[in-house]
């Protein structure tokens, strides 16, 4: 079964005897989206524990929608985009509660240093750390997920013109931090 077929089956699976099929369809969706979603949550929140929690919460909310109206008639790209939108809202809820993970003090929750090419990864991590949460989100959604301004606006709740301006600022700031001459002086 392809992912597209599983999404279709999942959308159609509102009847009680279709729950086994639902779970199988969900597994396919989960397997294809959990890793990139977690990477997004980790890089934007800066904490492994937060990324773990929000990943589970994202899928719980996604599944709850099935119970609400059974309106999951989405294709693969829409499903992925919808999951990122939920995750983005959850991150925003955390910031509204004043929980900005990068500013926190917990070493336990931070991402462990990796073995291969740690310098390059630390650069990206350092750049993300230096940016505001909103900027991290916008850069990731635009350049990793490849979302257009309109799609980012839908995911973040901002208007399209603001996205253009905020993305421009975030890109300029991040590119400045990534340049070798900037890194040496830091």
């Amino acid at each position: 079964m392809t992912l597209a077929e599983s999404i279709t089956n999942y959308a159609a699976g509102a009847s009680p005897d279709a729950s086994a099929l639902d779970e199988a369809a969900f597994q396919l969706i989960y397997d294809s989206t959990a890793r990139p979603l977690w990477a997004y949550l980790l890089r934007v929140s800066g904490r492994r524990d937060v990324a773990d929690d929000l990943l589970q919460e994202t899928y719980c909310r996604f599944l709850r929608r099935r119970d609400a109206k059974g309106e999951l008639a989405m294709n693969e790209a829409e499903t992925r985009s919808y999951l990122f939108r939920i995750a983005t809202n959850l991150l925003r809820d955390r910031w509204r509660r004043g929980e900005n993970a990068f500013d926190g003090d917990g070493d336990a929750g931070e991402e462990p240093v990796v073995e291969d090419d740690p310098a390059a990864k630390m650069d990206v991590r350092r750049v993300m750390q230096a940016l505001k949460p909103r900027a991290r989100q916008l850069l990731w959604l635009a350049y990793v997920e490849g979302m257009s301004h309109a799609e980012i606006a839908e995911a973040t709740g901002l208007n399209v013109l603001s996205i253009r301006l905020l993305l421009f600022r975030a890109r300029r700031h991040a590119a400045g931090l990534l340049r070798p001459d900037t890194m040496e002086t830091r």
Partner: protein
Amino acid sequence: MNAMRCRYENEMIRALQTGAWSESLIEHQKNCADCRDAVVLAQALRRDANDVAARYAPPPSAQVWAAAERRRRMAALERATRFVFALKIAGLIYAAVLVLWGVRALAVHGVIVPGLDSKLLNTAIEGAGLAALLVGSGLWYTLRGDERRTG
């Protein structure tokens, strides 16, 4: 060129995603410092995203599914509890109306309290009916609001 007004920006994001670079886009990128920055940044972010995703071992989907099911059942239980509570309140109100109606019926025949006439009791019953209506609609609105928040 100022990328805030760069008409190629969305097109460039798409090209970065798909790898399909048109001639005009390649030409534009050579002359646009911000677009060049965007390409460097996108490459760094994507490399990092791939590395992070590859290292991550997500929990089994069955675990996430079970957690969602558990929450769904809890939410259903909460809704049922609220409904029973609403029924209890409505039962109390209807019991009060019934008692008043009974008292009125007895008062008409002069069985209880001589000073309590049927006009006074009618007013009391109408008041109780109105209260039942207002309380009922208030409960309905509250429960509906709760359902929206938790749904």
